[in-house]
Protein backbone atom coordinates (compact mmCIF):
# COMPACT_ATOMS: atom_id res chain seq x y z
CA UNK A 1 0.00 0.00 0.00
CA UNK A 2 2.87 2.33 0.82
CA UNK A 3 4.12 2.50 -2.75
CA UNK A 4 0.74 2.24 -4.49
CA UNK A 5 1.00 5.57 -6.33
CA UNK A 6 4.64 5.05 -7.30
CA UNK A 7 3.83 1.59 -8.69
CA UNK A 8 0.74 2.90 -10.47
CA UNK A 9 2.86 5.50 -12.22
CA UNK A 10 5.46 2.90 -13.20
CA UNK A 11 2.72 0.61 -14.52
CA UNK A 12 1.10 3.37 -16.59
CA UNK A 13 4.44 4.49 -18.00
CA UNK A 14 5.52 0.94 -18.90
CA UNK A 15 3.08 0.90 -21.86
CA UNK A 16 5.07 3.63 -23.58
CA UNK A 17 8.34 3.49 -25.55
CA UNK A 18 11.41 3.92 -23.37
CA UNK A 19 12.32 7.34 -24.78
CA UNK A 20 9.04 8.88 -23.60
CA UNK A 21 8.98 7.29 -20.17
CA UNK A 22 10.74 9.99 -18.09
CA UNK A 23 8.78 12.83 -19.67
CA UNK A 24 5.38 11.15 -19.40
CA UNK A 25 6.19 9.97 -15.87
CA UNK A 26 6.97 13.51 -14.76
CA UNK A 27 3.86 14.73 -16.53
CA UNK A 28 1.72 12.20 -14.66
CA UNK A 29 3.10 13.43 -11.33
CA UNK A 30 2.41 17.03 -12.33
CA UNK A 31 -1.17 16.16 -13.28
CA UNK A 32 -1.61 14.40 -9.94
CA UNK A 33 -0.40 17.48 -8.04
CA UNK A 34 -2.45 19.90 -10.14
CA UNK A 35 -5.61 17.81 -9.60
CA UNK A 36 -5.12 16.81 -6.00
CA UNK A 37 -4.39 20.11 -4.32
CA UNK A 38 -7.26 22.15 -5.84
CA UNK A 39 -9.57 19.28 -4.80
CA UNK A 40 -8.15 19.51 -1.31
CA UNK A 41 -8.70 23.28 -1.51
CA UNK A 42 -12.38 22.75 -2.33
CA UNK A 43 -12.79 20.44 0.65
CA UNK A 44 -10.90 22.82 2.91
CA UNK A 45 -13.20 25.75 2.10
CA UNK A 46 -16.20 23.75 3.34
CA UNK A 47 -14.22 22.52 6.31
CA UNK A 48 -13.16 26.06 7.15
CA UNK A 49 -16.63 27.58 6.84
CA UNK A 50 -18.13 24.76 8.88
CA UNK A 51 -15.41 25.05 11.51
CA UNK A 52 -15.71 28.82 11.78
CA UNK A 53 -19.49 28.48 12.00
CA UNK A 54 -19.09 25.99 14.83
CA UNK A 55 -16.76 28.38 16.68
CA UNK A 56 -19.21 31.27 16.14
CA UNK A 57 -22.23 29.20 17.15
CA UNK A 58 -24.00 29.05 13.79
CA UNK A 59 -24.58 26.42 11.13
CA UNK A 60 -22.48 27.41 8.15
CA UNK A 61 -23.20 26.25 4.57
CA UNK A 62 -25.94 23.62 4.67
CA UNK A 63 -28.05 24.12 1.51
CA UNK A 64 -26.09 22.56 -1.38
CA UNK A 65 -25.80 18.79 -1.05
CA UNK A 66 -25.65 16.81 2.18
CA UNK A 67 -24.22 18.99 4.99
CA UNK A 68 -23.35 21.62 2.37
CA UNK A 69 -20.61 19.40 0.96
CA UNK A 70 -21.33 20.41 -2.65
CA UNK A 71 -20.95 24.11 -1.82
CA UNK A 72 -17.46 24.42 -3.44
CA UNK A 73 -18.84 23.08 -6.74
CA UNK A 74 -21.56 25.72 -6.70
CA UNK A 75 -19.00 28.38 -5.82
CA UNK A 76 -16.70 27.18 -8.60
CA UNK A 77 -19.46 27.38 -11.21
CA UNK A 78 -20.37 30.81 -9.91
CA UNK A 79 -16.85 32.21 -10.24
CA UNK A 80 -16.36 30.63 -13.67
CA UNK A 81 -19.51 32.19 -15.09
CA UNK A 82 -19.13 35.62 -13.49
CA UNK A 83 -18.20 38.58 -15.65
CA UNK A 84 -14.49 39.33 -15.69
CA UNK A 85 -14.28 43.03 -14.88
CA UNK A 86 -11.07 44.97 -15.49
CA UNK A 87 -11.17 48.58 -14.26
CA UNK A 88 -10.88 51.17 -17.04
CA UNK A 89 -7.76 52.81 -15.62
CA UNK A 90 -6.11 49.53 -14.66
CA UNK A 91 -2.85 48.45 -16.21
CA UNK A 92 -4.38 45.63 -18.25
CA UNK A 93 -1.27 43.52 -18.89
CA UNK A 94 0.03 43.60 -15.32
CA UNK A 95 -3.51 43.16 -13.99
CA UNK A 96 -3.83 39.97 -16.02
CA UNK A 97 -0.36 38.62 -15.23
CA UNK A 98 -0.56 38.98 -11.44
CA UNK A 99 -2.95 36.06 -10.62
CA UNK A 100 -1.24 33.84 -13.20
CA UNK A 101 2.20 34.48 -11.72
CA UNK A 102 0.88 33.89 -8.21
CA UNK A 103 -0.69 30.51 -8.94
CA UNK A 104 2.25 29.31 -11.04
CA UNK A 105 4.78 30.25 -8.35
CA UNK A 106 2.70 28.55 -5.66
CA UNK A 107 2.31 25.36 -7.69
CA UNK A 108 6.06 25.24 -8.32
CA UNK A 109 6.63 24.91 -4.58
CA UNK A 110 4.91 21.51 -4.53
CA UNK A 111 7.53 20.12 -6.91
CA UNK A 112 10.12 19.57 -4.17
CA UNK A 113 7.85 18.40 -1.31
CA UNK A 114 8.29 14.71 -0.46
CA UNK A 115 4.69 13.59 -0.01
CA UNK A 116 5.53 10.00 0.83
CA UNK A 117 8.29 7.47 0.50
CA UNK A 118 9.69 7.96 -3.07
CA UNK A 119 6.83 10.37 -3.78
CA UNK A 120 8.61 13.53 -4.84
CA UNK A 121 8.41 15.19 -8.22
CA UNK A 122 11.97 16.58 -8.46
CA UNK A 123 14.52 15.49 -5.89
CA UNK A 124 16.78 18.53 -6.02
CA UNK A 125 19.95 19.05 -4.03
CA UNK A 126 18.85 22.59 -3.26
CA UNK A 127 15.18 21.71 -2.72
CA UNK A 128 14.63 23.95 0.28
CA UNK A 129 16.22 26.90 -1.47
CA UNK A 130 14.04 26.26 -4.53
CA UNK A 131 10.95 26.28 -2.34
CA UNK A 132 11.85 29.59 -0.72
CA UNK A 133 12.78 31.11 -4.06
CA UNK A 134 9.34 30.23 -5.40
CA UNK A 135 7.48 31.48 -2.34
CA UNK A 136 9.43 34.74 -2.53
CA UNK A 137 8.21 35.26 -6.09
CA UNK A 138 4.60 35.41 -4.88
CA UNK A 139 5.33 38.74 -3.19
CA UNK A 140 5.91 40.32 -6.55
CA UNK A 141 2.59 38.94 -7.83
CA UNK A 142 0.79 40.49 -4.85
CA UNK A 143 2.43 43.82 -5.53
CA UNK A 144 1.57 43.63 -9.24
CA UNK A 145 -2.08 42.92 -8.40
CA UNK A 146 -2.38 45.83 -6.01
CA UNK A 147 -0.49 48.35 -8.08
CA UNK A 148 -2.09 47.57 -11.43
CA UNK A 149 -5.63 47.95 -10.07
CA UNK A 150 -5.21 51.74 -9.69
CA UNK A 151 -7.25 51.71 -6.54
CA UNK A 152 -6.10 53.13 -3.23
CA UNK A 153 -7.45 50.20 -1.21
CA UNK A 154 -5.72 47.72 -3.50
CA UNK A 155 -2.44 49.61 -3.34
CA UNK A 156 -2.60 49.99 0.44
CA UNK A 157 -3.41 46.30 0.81
CA UNK A 158 -0.58 45.33 -1.50
CA UNK A 159 1.93 47.53 0.33
CA UNK A 160 0.83 46.07 3.64
CA UNK A 161 1.02 42.54 2.27
CA UNK A 162 4.46 43.02 0.77
CA UNK A 163 5.86 44.73 3.87
CA UNK A 164 4.48 41.95 6.03
CA UNK A 165 5.70 39.14 3.80
CA UNK A 166 9.19 40.58 3.46
CA UNK A 167 9.46 41.14 7.23
CA UNK A 168 8.34 37.64 8.11
CA UNK A 169 10.40 36.00 5.40
CA UNK A 170 13.52 36.68 7.46
CA UNK A 171 12.35 34.66 10.52
CA UNK A 172 10.90 32.03 8.16
CA UNK A 173 14.27 31.46 6.53
CA UNK A 174 16.24 31.72 9.76
CA UNK A 175 14.02 29.22 11.58
CA UNK A 176 14.46 26.75 8.71
CA UNK A 177 18.22 27.29 8.53
CA UNK A 178 18.50 25.52 11.89
CA UNK A 179 17.32 22.31 10.27
CA UNK A 180 19.80 22.74 7.42
CA UNK A 181 22.59 23.26 9.97
CA UNK A 182 21.70 19.98 11.65
CA UNK A 183 21.30 17.84 8.56
CA UNK A 184 23.98 19.58 6.48
CA UNK A 185 21.81 19.40 3.37
CA UNK A 186 19.23 21.49 1.54
CA UNK A 187 17.62 18.41 0.02
CA UNK A 188 14.19 17.76 1.53
CA UNK A 189 14.48 13.99 1.11
CA UNK A 190 17.70 14.04 3.14
CA UNK A 191 16.02 16.18 5.80
CA UNK A 192 13.22 13.61 6.09
CA UNK A 193 15.76 10.77 6.14
CA UNK A 194 17.62 12.48 8.98
CA UNK A 195 14.44 12.34 11.08
CA UNK A 196 13.63 8.70 10.41
CA UNK A 197 14.26 6.03 13.03
CA UNK A 198 12.87 5.51 16.50
CA UNK A 199 14.24 5.40 20.03
CA UNK A 200 12.06 3.39 22.41
CA UNK A 201 9.10 3.76 20.03
CA UNK A 202 9.41 7.54 19.77
CA UNK A 203 10.51 9.23 16.51
CA UNK A 204 13.60 11.39 15.95
CA UNK A 205 11.63 14.40 14.77
CA UNK A 206 13.33 17.74 15.08
CA UNK A 207 10.41 19.22 17.00
CA UNK A 208 11.40 17.02 19.97
CA UNK A 209 14.62 18.95 20.55
CA UNK A 210 14.88 22.38 22.23
CA UNK A 211 16.13 24.15 19.09
CA UNK A 212 13.65 22.24 16.91
CA UNK A 213 10.71 23.19 19.10
CA UNK A 214 11.72 26.86 19.21
CA UNK A 215 12.32 26.77 15.46
CA UNK A 216 8.94 25.18 14.82
CA UNK A 217 7.07 27.76 16.89
CA UNK A 218 8.78 30.62 15.04
CA UNK A 219 8.26 28.86 11.72
CA UNK A 220 4.54 28.56 12.50
CA UNK A 221 4.29 32.26 13.37
CA UNK A 222 6.17 33.24 10.22
CA UNK A 223 4.06 31.00 7.97
CA UNK A 224 0.84 32.45 9.34
CA UNK A 225 2.09 35.92 8.45
CA UNK A 226 3.53 34.76 5.13
CA UNK A 227 0.18 33.32 3.99
CA UNK A 228 -1.71 36.42 5.20
CA UNK A 229 -3.87 34.38 7.52
CA UNK A 230 -5.59 35.70 10.61
CA UNK A 231 -4.36 37.08 13.07
CA UNK A 232 -1.95 38.54 10.50
CA UNK A 233 -4.56 39.21 7.81
CA UNK A 234 -4.09 42.98 7.73
CA UNK A 235 -3.54 43.03 3.97
CA UNK A 236 -7.12 41.90 3.54
CA UNK A 237 -8.63 43.57 6.61
CA UNK A 238 -12.23 43.73 5.40
CA UNK A 239 -13.21 46.50 7.79
CA UNK A 240 -10.39 48.75 6.61
CA UNK A 241 -9.46 47.89 3.04
CA UNK A 242 -12.52 46.22 1.40
CA UNK A 243 -10.45 43.18 0.34
CA UNK A 244 -6.90 44.43 -0.02
CA UNK A 245 -4.90 43.70 -3.13
CA UNK A 246 -7.61 41.67 -4.86
CA UNK A 247 -10.40 44.23 -4.47
CA UNK A 248 -10.57 44.86 -8.22
CA UNK A 249 -10.58 41.21 -9.26
CA UNK A 250 -13.74 39.35 -10.11
CA UNK A 251 -14.78 36.00 -11.48
CA UNK A 252 -12.09 33.53 -12.33
CA UNK A 253 -9.16 35.83 -11.53
CA UNK A 254 -10.46 36.27 -8.00
CA UNK A 255 -10.87 32.51 -7.78
CA UNK A 256 -7.21 32.17 -8.76
CA UNK A 257 -6.16 34.45 -5.90
CA UNK A 258 -8.32 32.48 -3.50
CA UNK A 259 -6.84 29.22 -4.80
CA UNK A 260 -3.31 30.62 -4.58
CA UNK A 261 -3.78 31.61 -0.96
CA UNK A 262 -4.96 28.16 0.07
CA UNK A 263 -2.37 26.35 -2.02
CA UNK A 264 0.32 28.45 -0.36
CA UNK A 265 -1.11 27.35 2.98
CA UNK A 266 -0.97 23.68 1.95
CA UNK A 267 2.56 23.83 0.62
CA UNK A 268 3.96 25.79 3.53
CA UNK A 269 2.28 23.41 5.99
CA UNK A 270 3.73 20.52 4.04
CA UNK A 271 7.16 22.11 4.26
CA UNK A 272 6.73 22.62 8.00
CA UNK A 273 5.80 18.96 8.39
CA UNK A 274 8.85 18.00 6.34
CA UNK A 275 11.26 20.19 8.26
CA UNK A 276 10.14 19.65 11.84
CA UNK A 277 7.52 16.88 12.00
CA UNK A 278 9.42 14.14 10.22
CA UNK A 279 7.77 14.49 6.81
CA UNK A 280 6.03 11.24 5.90
CA UNK A 281 7.37 9.19 8.83
CA UNK A 282 5.01 7.69 11.38
CA UNK A 283 4.76 9.17 14.89
CA UNK A 284 5.22 5.80 16.66
CA UNK A 285 7.22 2.76 15.64
CA UNK A 286 4.16 0.47 15.88
CA UNK A 287 2.28 2.62 13.35
CA UNK A 288 4.77 2.29 10.49
CA UNK A 289 2.44 -0.10 8.63
CA UNK A 290 0.18 2.84 7.72
CA UNK A 291 1.21 4.21 4.27
CA UNK A 292 3.63 7.13 4.35
CA UNK A 293 1.43 9.44 2.24
CA UNK A 294 -1.38 9.11 4.78
CA UNK A 295 0.98 10.45 7.45
CA UNK A 296 2.10 13.34 5.28
CA UNK A 297 -1.43 14.42 4.48
CA UNK A 298 -2.62 13.96 8.08
CA UNK A 299 0.13 16.28 9.27
CA UNK A 300 -0.78 18.74 6.55
CA UNK A 301 -4.48 18.72 7.41
CA UNK A 302 -3.68 19.03 11.09
CA UNK A 303 -1.78 22.26 10.39
CA UNK A 304 -4.69 23.50 8.27
CA UNK A 305 -7.00 22.77 11.17
CA UNK A 306 -4.78 24.84 13.47
CA UNK A 307 -4.81 27.69 10.92
CA UNK A 308 -8.64 27.66 10.90
CA UNK A 309 -8.78 27.41 14.66
CA UNK A 310 -6.52 30.46 15.04
CA UNK A 311 -8.61 32.38 12.55
CA UNK A 312 -11.72 31.69 14.60
CA UNK A 313 -10.18 32.67 17.92
CA UNK A 314 -7.61 35.44 17.60
CA UNK A 315 -8.28 39.13 16.89
CA UNK A 316 -6.37 40.92 14.16
CA UNK A 317 -3.09 42.68 15.01
CA UNK A 318 -2.37 46.33 14.31
CA UNK A 319 0.27 47.20 11.72
CA UNK A 320 2.83 48.54 14.23
CA UNK A 321 2.30 45.54 16.53
CA UNK A 322 2.87 43.25 13.57
CA UNK A 323 6.15 44.90 12.60
CA UNK A 324 7.44 45.22 16.17
CA UNK A 325 6.65 41.57 16.77
CA UNK A 326 8.59 40.48 13.71
CA UNK A 327 11.70 42.61 14.13
CA UNK A 328 12.00 42.92 17.91
CA UNK A 329 10.81 39.54 19.13
CA UNK A 330 10.81 36.78 16.53
CA UNK A 331 14.02 37.81 14.76
CA UNK A 332 16.26 38.01 17.88
CA UNK A 333 14.93 34.66 19.07
CA UNK A 334 15.64 33.15 15.63
CA UNK A 335 19.23 34.40 15.73
CA UNK A 336 19.64 33.04 19.25
CA UNK A 337 18.20 29.74 18.10
CA UNK A 338 20.94 29.48 15.47
CA UNK A 339 23.57 29.71 18.22
CA UNK A 340 21.71 27.25 20.40
CA UNK A 341 21.65 24.80 17.51
CA UNK A 342 25.40 25.18 17.12
CA UNK A 343 25.88 24.62 20.85
CA UNK A 344 23.69 21.50 20.67
CA UNK A 345 25.74 20.17 17.79
CA UNK A 346 29.09 20.52 19.57
CA UNK A 347 28.12 19.54 23.12
CA UNK A 348 27.83 15.87 22.28
CA UNK A 349 25.28 13.43 23.64
CA UNK A 350 23.98 13.57 27.17
CA UNK A 351 21.35 15.23 29.29
CA UNK A 352 23.46 18.36 29.91
CA UNK A 353 22.84 19.81 26.45
CA UNK A 354 19.10 19.39 26.88
CA UNK A 355 19.17 21.41 30.10
CA UNK A 356 21.50 24.16 28.84
CA UNK A 357 19.78 24.64 25.49
CA UNK A 358 16.30 24.68 27.02
CA UNK A 359 17.35 27.11 29.74
CA UNK A 360 18.90 29.52 27.21
CA UNK A 361 15.82 29.49 24.98
CA UNK A 362 13.22 29.74 27.75
CA UNK A 363 15.27 32.42 29.53
CA UNK A 364 15.60 34.51 26.37
CA UNK A 365 11.90 34.08 25.60
CA UNK A 366 10.83 35.26 29.05
CA UNK A 367 13.36 38.08 29.27
CA UNK A 368 12.55 39.42 25.84
CA UNK A 369 8.80 39.15 26.29
CA UNK A 370 8.90 40.70 29.74
CA UNK A 371 11.16 43.54 28.57
CA UNK A 372 8.93 44.30 25.61
CA UNK A 373 5.82 44.30 27.80
CA UNK A 374 7.41 46.70 30.27
CA UNK A 375 8.68 49.04 27.57
CA UNK A 376 5.44 49.00 25.60
CA UNK A 377 3.30 52.02 26.36
CA UNK A 378 -0.01 50.46 27.26
CA UNK A 379 -2.67 53.13 27.34
CA UNK A 380 -5.03 55.06 25.10
CA UNK A 381 -4.01 54.82 21.48
CA UNK A 382 -2.61 57.98 19.91
CA UNK A 383 -3.58 58.71 16.33
CA UNK A 384 -1.31 60.46 13.92
CA UNK A 385 -3.45 61.17 10.88
CA UNK A 386 -7.00 60.14 11.77
CA UNK A 387 -7.68 62.58 14.58
Amino acid at each position, binding site marked *: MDQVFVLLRLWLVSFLPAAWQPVIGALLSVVAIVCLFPALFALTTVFERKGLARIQNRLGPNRVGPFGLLQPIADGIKSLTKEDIVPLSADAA*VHFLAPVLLVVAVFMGFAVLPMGRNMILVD*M*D*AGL*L*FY*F*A*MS*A*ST*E*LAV*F*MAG*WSSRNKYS*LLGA*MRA*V*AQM*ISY*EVPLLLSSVVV*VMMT*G*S*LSLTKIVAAQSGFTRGLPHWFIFTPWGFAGFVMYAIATTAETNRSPFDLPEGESELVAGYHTEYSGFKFALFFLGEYLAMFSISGLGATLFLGGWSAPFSFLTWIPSWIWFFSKLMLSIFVFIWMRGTLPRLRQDQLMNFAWKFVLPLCLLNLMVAGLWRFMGDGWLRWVICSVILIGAYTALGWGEMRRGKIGPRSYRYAE
Partner: protein
Amino acid sequence: MSFVFYILAALTVAGGLAAMLLKNTVHCALALTVAFAGLALLFLNLDAQFAGFAQILVYIGAVAILVVFAILLTRGSETPRDGVFSRTWLAGLLIAAGVFAVLGWAVIGSVRVLPHETAVPTVTVLQIGNALVSRYVLPLEIVAVLLTAAMIGAVIVAMHEKEGQK
Protein backbone atom coordinates in the same frame (compact mmCIF):
# COMPACT_ATOMS: atom_id res chain seq x y z
CA MET B 1 26.68 27.46 -26.40
CA SER B 2 23.34 25.81 -26.74
CA PHE B 3 20.04 26.97 -28.16
CA VAL B 4 18.67 27.42 -24.63
CA PHE B 5 21.49 29.83 -23.84
CA TYR B 6 20.50 32.12 -26.70
CA ILE B 7 16.84 32.18 -25.63
CA LEU B 8 17.81 33.03 -22.05
CA ALA B 9 20.36 35.62 -23.13
CA ALA B 10 17.79 37.28 -25.38
CA LEU B 11 15.28 37.30 -22.50
CA THR B 12 17.79 38.85 -20.10
CA VAL B 13 18.95 41.51 -22.54
CA ALA B 14 15.36 42.33 -23.50
CA GLY B 15 14.45 42.71 -19.83
CA GLY B 16 17.43 44.97 -19.25
CA LEU B 17 16.65 47.10 -22.30
CA ALA B 18 12.98 47.40 -21.33
CA ALA B 19 14.03 48.47 -17.84
CA MET B 20 15.84 51.43 -19.36
CA LEU B 21 13.46 52.35 -22.16
CA LEU B 22 9.96 52.05 -20.65
CA LYS B 23 8.27 55.28 -19.58
CA ASN B 24 6.56 54.14 -16.38
CA THR B 25 9.01 53.58 -13.51
CA VAL B 26 7.09 50.64 -12.05
CA HIS B 27 7.09 48.96 -15.46
CA CYS B 28 10.85 49.50 -15.52
CA ALA B 29 11.15 47.75 -12.16
CA LEU B 30 9.07 44.81 -13.40
CA ALA B 31 11.19 44.59 -16.57
CA LEU B 32 14.28 44.57 -14.37
CA THR B 33 12.75 41.58 -12.57
CA VAL B 34 12.52 39.79 -15.91
CA ALA B 35 16.24 40.44 -16.39
CA PHE B 36 16.94 39.04 -12.91
CA ALA B 37 14.89 35.95 -13.72
CA GLY B 38 16.80 35.50 -16.97
CA LEU B 39 20.10 35.65 -15.08
CA ALA B 40 18.83 33.07 -12.58
CA LEU B 41 17.82 30.77 -15.43
CA LEU B 42 21.28 31.22 -16.97
CA PHE B 43 22.83 30.06 -13.68
CA LEU B 44 20.51 27.06 -13.65
CA ASN B 45 21.44 26.35 -17.25
CA LEU B 46 25.04 26.07 -16.03
CA ASP B 47 23.94 23.55 -13.35
CA ALA B 48 24.66 26.07 -10.59
CA GLN B 49 21.53 25.36 -8.56
CA PHE B 50 22.57 27.20 -5.43
CA ALA B 51 23.51 30.40 -7.26
CA GLY B 52 20.39 30.25 -9.44
CA PHE B 53 17.90 29.82 -6.61
CA ALA B 54 19.74 32.31 -4.42
CA GLN B 55 19.47 34.77 -7.31
CA ILE B 56 15.68 34.27 -7.46
CA LEU B 57 15.30 34.45 -3.68
CA VAL B 58 17.42 37.55 -3.17
CA TYR B 59 16.86 39.52 -6.37
CA ILE B 60 13.23 38.74 -7.26
CA GLY B 61 12.07 38.15 -3.69
CA ALA B 62 13.81 41.05 -2.01
CA VAL B 63 15.65 43.48 -4.29
CA ALA B 64 12.84 43.91 -6.82
CA ILE B 65 10.36 44.42 -3.99
CA LEU B 66 12.60 47.02 -2.37
CA VAL B 67 12.98 48.78 -5.71
CA VAL B 68 9.22 49.12 -6.17
CA PHE B 69 8.87 50.15 -2.52
CA ALA B 70 11.45 52.87 -3.01
CA ILE B 71 9.68 54.05 -6.17
CA LEU B 72 6.26 54.21 -4.54
CA LEU B 73 7.45 55.78 -1.29
CA THR B 74 9.56 58.52 -2.80
CA ARG B 75 7.65 59.95 -5.77
CA GLY B 76 5.06 59.03 -8.37
CA SER B 77 5.72 56.40 -10.98
CA GLU B 78 5.29 58.87 -13.85
CA THR B 79 8.28 60.32 -15.68
CA PRO B 80 9.02 63.90 -14.56
CA ARG B 81 8.14 66.66 -17.03
CA ASP B 82 11.65 68.13 -17.25
CA GLY B 83 13.30 64.96 -18.60
CA VAL B 84 15.12 62.16 -16.87
CA PHE B 85 18.68 63.35 -17.54
CA SER B 86 20.46 64.56 -14.43
CA ARG B 87 23.00 67.35 -14.68
CA THR B 88 25.88 65.06 -13.80
CA TRP B 89 25.17 62.54 -16.57
CA LEU B 90 28.71 62.81 -17.93
CA ALA B 91 30.27 61.76 -14.60
CA GLY B 92 27.72 58.96 -14.33
CA LEU B 93 28.59 57.76 -17.80
CA LEU B 94 32.30 57.73 -16.97
CA ILE B 95 31.75 55.79 -13.73
CA ALA B 96 29.50 53.26 -15.49
CA ALA B 97 32.04 52.79 -18.27
CA GLY B 98 34.80 52.34 -15.70
CA VAL B 99 32.87 49.73 -13.74
CA PHE B 100 32.02 47.91 -16.95
CA ALA B 101 35.66 47.95 -18.03
CA VAL B 102 36.85 46.52 -14.69
CA LEU B 103 34.19 43.79 -14.77
CA GLY B 104 34.94 42.93 -18.37
CA TRP B 105 38.68 42.82 -17.64
CA ALA B 106 38.07 40.48 -14.67
CA VAL B 107 35.79 38.18 -16.70
CA ILE B 108 38.17 37.96 -19.64
CA GLY B 109 41.13 37.43 -17.31
CA SER B 110 39.34 34.60 -15.49
CA VAL B 111 39.23 32.50 -18.66
CA ARG B 112 43.02 32.15 -18.60
CA VAL B 113 43.48 31.74 -14.84
CA LEU B 114 40.75 29.28 -13.92
CA PRO B 115 40.94 25.64 -15.04
CA HIS B 116 38.57 24.67 -17.80
CA GLU B 117 35.88 22.47 -16.24
CA THR B 118 34.59 19.69 -18.39
CA ALA B 119 32.42 17.75 -15.93
CA VAL B 120 29.87 19.41 -13.66
CA PRO B 121 31.50 19.83 -10.24
CA THR B 122 29.42 18.68 -7.29
CA VAL B 123 29.27 21.45 -4.72
CA THR B 124 27.65 20.85 -1.37
CA VAL B 125 26.21 23.49 0.95
CA LEU B 126 29.00 22.70 3.40
CA GLN B 127 31.65 23.60 0.82
CA ILE B 128 29.91 26.87 -0.05
CA GLY B 129 29.67 27.75 3.63
CA ASN B 130 33.33 26.91 4.28
CA ALA B 131 34.44 28.94 1.25
CA LEU B 132 32.38 31.94 2.38
CA VAL B 133 33.94 32.12 5.84
CA SER B 134 37.50 31.20 4.87
CA ARG B 135 38.68 32.17 1.39
CA TYR B 136 36.00 34.71 0.51
CA VAL B 137 35.58 36.23 3.96
CA LEU B 138 36.93 39.63 2.93
CA PRO B 139 34.49 40.17 0.01
CA LEU B 140 31.69 38.96 2.27
CA GLU B 141 32.55 41.52 4.93
CA ILE B 142 32.93 44.29 2.35
CA VAL B 143 29.47 43.48 1.00
CA ALA B 144 28.10 43.54 4.55
CA VAL B 145 29.62 46.99 5.18
CA LEU B 146 28.27 48.20 1.85
CA LEU B 147 24.76 47.00 2.71
CA THR B 148 24.92 48.64 6.14
CA ALA B 149 26.00 51.91 4.54
CA ALA B 150 23.14 51.63 2.04
CA MET B 151 20.66 51.03 4.85
CA ILE B 152 21.88 54.04 6.83
CA GLY B 153 21.65 56.10 3.67
CA ALA B 154 18.07 54.94 3.06
CA VAL B 155 17.08 55.84 6.62
CA ILE B 156 18.63 59.30 6.24
CA VAL B 157 16.78 59.88 2.96
CA ALA B 158 13.48 58.76 4.51
CA MET B 159 13.97 60.94 7.63
CA HIS B 160 14.80 63.94 5.47
CA GLU B 161 11.57 63.56 3.51
CA LYS B 162 9.50 63.32 6.66
CA GLU B 163 10.94 66.59 7.92
CA GLY B 164 10.10 68.23 4.61
CA GLN B 165 6.45 67.25 4.96
CA LYS B 166 5.94 69.00 8.25
